[in-house]
Structures are given as structure tokens and as C-alpha cells.
């Protein structure tokens, strides 16, 4: 017997799944090269799902359904809402590009994206280790297929291979860690896990052993040093439309499982995993930023910059528990990390959107030099890209600055000397980061264009991209609302 509460918690997921299957079938009858009908249906479905999630989030109730298997809380619902919107935006940007590259012979781009989104949803709202794993696999399997969508392209197939092998290994790590936790505590339920560990009845050595594998698996999925090697290759090798997809929304889901596993489940072990996160973030900030300087390929540069940005997220995640006090600083720290991820995804969508836009048929615009003089060819798109670059570099008044600010604030407020040191380190690393973001602006604004052709884009792409770029600035001028939203939902998640 499935009760009403259970249905309430999962009805957007069910809608999404049913529609994904239905659209797969409907698509068989679609003949247009741009898959107009499939596109419209997908968009409608995603919009409905996003609205439903926002509706649930605004209601602000926490429901546990299916015997504690899934949880629906404000944080999860907002993340799901943002993820759905992010997938919508990526599809808008991706469609013309995909059509030119023979990636729209069938509607797989759309259905795989919907299934990947479903995987994210499951990850975000799972309250059970096994379900988390299933969601993760659904997301990553769809992503592997997406990366290999241009099956006659050598770079893409190679990227898919790398992605698959490394991703499978990461999943293995995670599964192994989960089995350790199960062995130690006898439960897969995350809430039970927390209770069982807090009781102090569990042997810590098995737990910590499991924890190491969990953190390694998560680090793979987030793509932080030293588990980052797949990121640049996959970002560069995948068709840009797919890079956009795997670089955007899945970060929200990866953040969610970090919160669910580490914070909701394993917070009593915080002193152990915080040390690991600190090492990971130092490495990510250092290697991500230094390696990004040397890149000439824009997608690869953005990949390394992602690594360093994720290092910042880890800084937020690790500053929640201070000297065994898991209450005072927690909401502030985790909500700063959440704000960081959300704004990062917003900015990334726009940067890859511009890259997609500039890629013409048979020509991949992904070398940094391809952007030379973009300001003369199209001031609007140059402005969008520059706004995003400044945002990623953390220059006010772009939203990225407030993301960095809130994470730094979470570090400093803890009062720990080592965290203060981390804040100064992170600040110095952002200075290095500013260099390569500035170089991108330099290329677009100061260099002479190689071609004089103006950039044309379909109306939907133009509108969405403008809104996306404007939001990076507008949210920077008025970041209060989104910050309050993150803070409120994290507080609710922590039961405060």
C-alpha cells in the first residue's frame, strides 16, 4: 500500500519518467531536422516539473515517503527546480549546435537529458544509500551515452571511454564505501545511519575506512583534485552541447549527495571528513588554477576552472562543524556552499552557451583565440561572456563575488586559525584565477577579430542567453533573495 504522502514526494519524478518514455515514442514519428515537436514537449515537461518542484519548495514541508526511502524537503526541491531549469537552458543552447552536427537524427539528446535529470532528482531526494547509488548510475549512464552521441567523432568516443572507465571506478569506490557503512551500522537508511553513528556504539575504524571510500567517490563525481583527471578530457572531448549538460545541472546533484551523505548521514564523523575535504580543496584550488593558465583550449580552461571552483564549494562544506560544534556554524556554512553551487551553474550555462553559439557548422569554436575580437562581431555576446568571466573570477558586482564572499565569510566566522589561513590561501588562488579569466576578456575585447562575420542566433537562444547573462549581473546587484532561500532551506534540512 502506498500512501498519499509517498505520492506527494515523488510525483514530479513520476511525471518526468512517464514523459521521458512517452517523448521517446512520440519522437519516432517526428521528421523535422530540428525535432520541433520533441523539443517543445520536452520543454513543457521540464517546465511543469520545475514549477511543481518550486511549488513543493515554497510550501516548505519535509516529507519522508516510501518507508523513509525518499525525502522531499525545501533544499532538495529547490535544487531539483534549479536542475530542471538548468537542463532546459542547456537544451535551448544545445539544439541548433546538435542539429548542425547530425546529433538530432533521433530525439535521444532530449530523452537522455530527461533521464539524466531523473537520475539527479533521485540523487537529490534519496534518503537511502542504495537509492542514492541508483540515481547516480542513472545520471552517469545517461551522461556516458550523451558524450558518445557523435559516435563517428574520435575525440567524443575517446572522451566517452575515459568518462565511462573512470566513472565506473568512482561508482565502485562509492559502493564499496557504502557497503562498509552498511557492515558497520546495519542500515542503508541515511537517517538511521546518523542515529547509529551518533550513539557511539559503532566501531570507528570500519566507519572511517568506509568514509575514505565515500569521500573518494564523491570527489570523483565533483571532479576535485586528485580525482580530477577525467574532467578536462571529457569537457574537451565531448560535443560542446553535452559538455554544457554535464558541466551544469549535475553539479547541483553532486552537491546534494555530498550534503545527504556527509552532513545528514555522517556528521558525527565530521572531524574525519573535514580533514579530507581540506586536502582536496587545497589541491583543487592550486592545481585547478595553475593548470588553467596554461590552456589554449577554452573548454579545457573552463574544465580546470571548474576544478578550482569546486574547491571553493568544498571550503564551504568543510567549515560547518567547528571543534565538535555541529550547530552554531552549520547552516551558514552549508548554505554558502549551496549558494556557490547554484550561482556557479548559472554562470557556467552562459559561458558554454556562448561557446555553442559561436560554433558554426563544421567549425568548433573552442580555442581561446577563436574568441578574438568578439566584441566587434557581437557586443552582446561578448558582454555576456565577459560578465560570466568576471563573475567566475569573483569581481563584484557579479554574483560570483557574493558566492566567494559567503564561503570566505563561513571560513572566517568559525574563528579557527587554520580556516583563516585557508581563507587567505583561497583569496590568493582567486588572484591567480583572475589572470586567466581576464585573458578571456582581453581576447574578446582587445584583440582584432579574425573573421568579420557577425554572430547569428535563433531567437530563443538569443533571448535565453541574454536573460542568463543579465541574471549573473542582476543576482549580483540583489543577491539577498537567493541567499535567503539557500539559508532557509539548509536550516530546514538541518532541522533548525
Amino acid at each position, binding site marked *: 500500500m502506498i500512501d498519499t504522502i509517498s505520492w506527494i514526494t515523488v510525483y514530479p519524478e513520476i511525471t518526468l519518467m512517464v514523459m521521458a518514455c512517452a517523448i521517446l515514442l512520440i519522437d519516432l514519428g517526428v521528421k523535422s531536422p530540428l525535432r520541433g515537436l520533441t523539443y517543445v514537449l520536452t520543454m513543457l515537461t521540464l517546465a511543469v516539473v520545475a514549477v511543481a518542484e518550486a511549488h513543493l519548495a515554497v510550501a516548505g514541508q519535509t516529507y519522508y515517503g516510501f518507508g523513509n526511502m525518499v525525502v522531499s524537503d525545501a533544499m532538495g526541491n529547490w535544487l531539483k527546480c534549479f536542475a530542471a531549469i538548468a537542463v532546459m537552458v542547456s537544451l535551448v543552447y544545445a539544439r541548433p549546435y546538435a542539429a548542425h552536427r547530425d546529433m538530432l537524427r533521433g530525439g535521444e539528446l532530449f530523452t537522455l537529458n530527461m533521464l539524466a535529470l531523473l537520475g539527479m532528482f533521485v540523487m537529490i531526494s534519496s534518503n537511502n544509500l542504495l537509492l542514492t547509488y541508483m540515481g547516480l548510475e542513472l545520471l552517469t549512464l545517461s551522461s556516458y551515452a550523451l558524450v558518445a552521441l557523435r559516435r563517428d567523432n574520435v575525440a567524443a568516443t575517446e572522451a566517452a571511454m575515459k568518462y565511462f572507465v573512470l566513472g565506473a571506478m568512482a561508482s565502485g569506490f562509492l559502493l564499496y564505501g557504502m557497503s562498509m557503512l552498511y557492515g558497520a551500522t546495519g542500515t542503508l537508511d541515511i537517517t538511521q545511519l546518523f542515529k547509529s553513528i551518533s550513539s557511539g556504539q559503532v566501531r570507528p575504524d570500519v566507519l572511517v575506512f568506509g568514509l575514505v571510500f565515500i569521500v573518494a567517490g564523491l570527489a570523483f563525481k565533483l571532479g576535485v583534485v586528485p580525482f580530477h583527471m577525467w574532467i578536462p578530457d571529457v569537457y574537451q572531448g565531448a560535443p560542446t552541447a553535452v559538455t554544457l549538460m554535464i558541466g551544469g545541472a549535475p553539479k547541483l546533484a553532486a552537491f546534494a549527495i555530498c550534503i545527504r551523505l556527509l552532513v545528514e548521514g555522517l556528521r558525527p564523523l565530521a572531524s574525519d571528513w573535514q580533514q579530507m575535504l581540506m586536502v582536496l580543496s587545497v589541491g583543487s584550488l592550486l592545481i585547478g588554477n595553475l593548470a588553467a593558465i596554461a590552456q589554449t583550449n577554452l573548454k579545457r580552461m573552463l574544465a580546470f576552472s571548474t576544478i578550482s571552483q569546486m574547491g571553493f564549494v568544498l571550503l564551504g562544506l568543510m567549515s560547518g562543524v567547528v571543534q565538535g560544534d555541529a550547530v552554531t556554524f552549520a547552516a551558514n556554512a552549508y548554505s554558502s556552499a549551496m549558494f556557490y553551487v547554484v550561482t556557479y551553474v548559472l554562470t557556467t550555462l552562459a559561458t558554454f552557451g556562448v561557446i555553442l553559439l559561436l560554433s558554426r557548422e563544421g567549425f568548433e569554436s573552442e580555442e581561446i583565440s577563436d574568441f578574438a575580437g568578439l*566584441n*566587434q562581431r557581437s*557586443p552582446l555576446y561578448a*558582454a555576456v561572456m565577459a560578465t560570466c568571466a*568576471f563573475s567566475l573570477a569573483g*569581481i*563584484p*558586482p557579479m554574483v560570483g*563575488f*557574493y558566492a566567494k*564572499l*559567503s564561503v*570566505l*565569510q563561513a571560513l*572566517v*566566522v568559525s*574563528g579557527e586559525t587554520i580556516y*583563516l589561513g585557508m*581563507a*587567505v590561501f583561497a*583569496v*590568493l588562488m*582567486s*588572484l591567480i584565477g*583572475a*589572470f586567466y579569466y*581576464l585573458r578571456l*576578456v*582581453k581576447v574578446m*575585447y*582587445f584583440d582584432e577579430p579574425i573573421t568579420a562575420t557577425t554572430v547569428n542566433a535563433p531567437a530563443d537562444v538569443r533571448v535565453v542567453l541574454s536573460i542568463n547573462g543579465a541574471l549573473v549581473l542582476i543576482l549580483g546587484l*540583489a*543577491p*539577498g533573495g537567493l*541567499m*535567503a532561500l539557500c*539559508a532557509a532551506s539548509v536550516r530546514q534540512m538541518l532541522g533548525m
Partner: protein
Amino acid sequence: MGLLSLSIWVPIAFGVVLLAFGRDEQATAVRWVALIGALCSFLLTLPLYSQFDNTTAAMQFVENLPWIERFNVNYHLGLDGISFWFVPLTAFITVIVVIAGWEVITERVNQYMGAFLILSGLMIGVFSALDGMLFYVFFEATLIPMYLIIGIWGGPNKIYAAFKFFLYTLLGSLLMLVALIYLYTQSGGSFDLAKWHALPLGETAQTLLFFAFFAAFAVKVPMWPVHTWLPDVHVEAPTGGSAVLAAIMLKLGAYGFLRFSMPIAPDAAHTWGSLMVGLSLVAVVYVGLVAMVQQDMKKLVAYSSVAHMGFVTLGFFIFNDLGVSGGLVQMIAHGFVSGAMFLSIGVLYDRVHSREISSYGGVVNTMPKFAAFGLFFAMANCGLPGTAGFVGEWMVILGAVKFNFWVGFASASALIFGAAYTLWMFKRVYLGPVVNDDVKALTDINAREFLMLALLAIAVLAMGLYPKPFTDVMDVSVAELLKHVAISKLN
């Protein structure tokens, strides 16, 4: 919306509208819109003066609205006697820069004018922010338009200069950011400057804060030995960029010392005051000597800026009212004079496309009107009585003599270097026989250039002859600041 908000947002709004303009076919319309925008924003700052009450040290024109509630950041604006004059000054220089770029800029005119108007609004925001985070946002945001101005319309080595400018100043500001967050946590979650001024802080905390702020402001001023970015940037920046940089942007740093370093960390400011005085003296004396051997006119004026800004920081860190007011007056005067010097160099550069002193000689023969202005501004730069340059330097030297005779002596002797390099440059560029065909072919300044230089000359002369309106506004606030700084925060 209050008057102060309008002063900030009207130029920014005009700037954004200009960015939306199309290509250079609409250049004429763009120029007029830019001029109207700049004039509007300047006119908006005039009622500020008539309504300013200079008998109180309290903040005036205060606007305080919640902005980012989660961090308790407020949109908190206000002016006192210390910040007041920089608002009209910024708007005035922006008008001049629009006029200066009128015919000279022919490519991407809308972006050029838009960048300057946005920059103008942002800088007014810096001077009027009373919330630490708001200050930081405006302070940092100014980097973006300036970076683009240098990089797009600059000289042959512009990219190097643009990067150097951005990264140098960003490094300083990032350390300041950590200091701001630290103060935020120490004050129990507030970015309010007034609260920070009253915050008790230990000796170590004050020292660390002082040097974090020093990193931001000393680079911006720039003080010796972190001044090396300035000559590089000035040489490459377009004329308007140099003028705004020297006239206003450098003042952001000096202003920061008064608003942040001294009142928040008064004990550290006293402890390290002698270091600051020492560095300022090095700037005044040594950099003055460096200026003397420059071959490039812009570089010479750039080094002279460093030396003049040395007077400003010298005045601040001798902790008496003559010194502080003198520093403030010197900041305003330097705004007019250095702006005028850079614009004059721009006039010559537009005609001959060289900034080497050796390419000129005998300009007075072909450009008599221009040479008259040149002489006037050169005199102001040396600090001739009756010009703006004199008042500030004289006040600082008087204050310095009160503080310590030998400090006063050293700074006064530096005036000789100022006179030497300025007059020597004037002699080599303007006087003597016509040296080459380039100079022979020069045409005298047109009405537009005359207007722009005349406006500046009037300002320099007015301030030199009758500085009372300037000092009257400052007096009470400066006294209040010094009273505050004199009280130790320890124990």
C-alpha cells in the same frame, strides 16, 4: 531616491543606455547623449553643495536601506566633510573627459563613453558608501571599466598595462576583503563603518588590519614602493583614462586611509605612522628625482603624481588638522592639475603621435594659446601661490613642520624637485626654436580643446585664490576624525 543615489545611478544609467547604442555610425548621437549624461550628473551634485551643512561632522544625505539581509549588508550612503568634495570633482572630471574624447575617439565610441560614465557613478559610490561591503563592491567594480578602457583604447603595450593594473590592485583589494570579513565577525555581524570605528580591537588585530588595508590603499594611491604599476599604466592608457586615473582613482586609495585604516586601527596607525611618513617622504623626494630623468612626458607626469600623492599620505600620517586638511586639499587640487596635465599631453599626442619630450621643442611658436595653458598648469604643478597646487602643499608642509622640523624641511625641499622637473619639461617642450617639421605643422587648439582646458584652468585658479569653500567643508569633519584617532582602542 535621494540626491546622493541619483548622483551615483544617473551616470550609470546613461552609461548603460550608451552601451545599448549601435555601431559607430551613431557616434555623433552617442557623444551628445554622453555629454548630456555627464552634465546631468554634474548638475545633480551642485545641490549637494548648497544643502551641505559644514557645521557638523555628522553624515549628511544619509540613505540607509537593507541590501543583503543575510549578511546584514546595507545600502548605506552618506557624505561628510572628508568625502564631500570628491563627488562633484568626479562628476566634473567626467564632463571634461567626455569633451576630451569628443573627436579623438572614433572607434567604439559608445563603449568608450559608456565606460567612463559607469566608472564615474561607481567612483561616486566609493566616496559615499558607509557600509564596508558596499564600499568594497564599488571599489572593485571600478576595475572593470578601467581595465577595458586601458585595454581597448590604449597604446601599443596596452595589454601588459591592463593586466598589471588589474592584478596589482586586485591583490591589494582581496586582502582588504579578508580584513572586512574579519571586522564583520568581530563586530557581531555588521558591515556598518560607524560601528567599526567604535569597535575595540587588540594590538595584533589592529596591526594585521592596518596592513591588510595598507595593501589595498597603498597600491591604489600608489605609495612607494608599490607604485611601479602607475607609470606603465599611464603610458599605455588613453588620454581620458590617464586623466580619470590620476584625477580620481588614485584618490580612492588615499580616501580609504582616512575612512578605514586610521579610525578603525588608530593605535596601529600611530605605531606605524612613522613608517608611513617615511614612505611618503621617499615618494616625495626619490620619485621626484626619478621624474626628472624621464624621456616620456606621460611617464614624467605619472611620477610627479606619485610624488604629489606622497604629500597627501604625508599629511594624513602626521595626525594634525593642518596635515589632514592639507592632504585633502592636495587631493582635490591634484585632481584638477594632473587631469589638466594629462589632457594637455593628449592634445599634443593627438597631433604628433609622440609623447617623447625630444620630439618637441618650440611648441609656443605654433600653438601660443595652448602654450599659455601649458605654462599655467606647469606652474600649478610646481605649487605656485595663487594656484590650487600651492594651497595643499603649503598646508601639509606647515603641518609637517609642526610635527617634526626635519620632516617639514625634507618635504619642503622636495618642492624644488617638483619645480625642476616640471619647468625643465616645459622648457624642452614649449620654449626655444621650432625643432622639426612636426612641430612646424602644429595647429593651435580648437574651441573644444580650449573649453576643456579653460574649465580646468578656472577651477585651478579659483581654488588657488579662494580655497575657503573647500577647507570650510572639511574642518569640522577633520577635527572630529583626529579626535577619534587620538583615542586609543586598547584597554
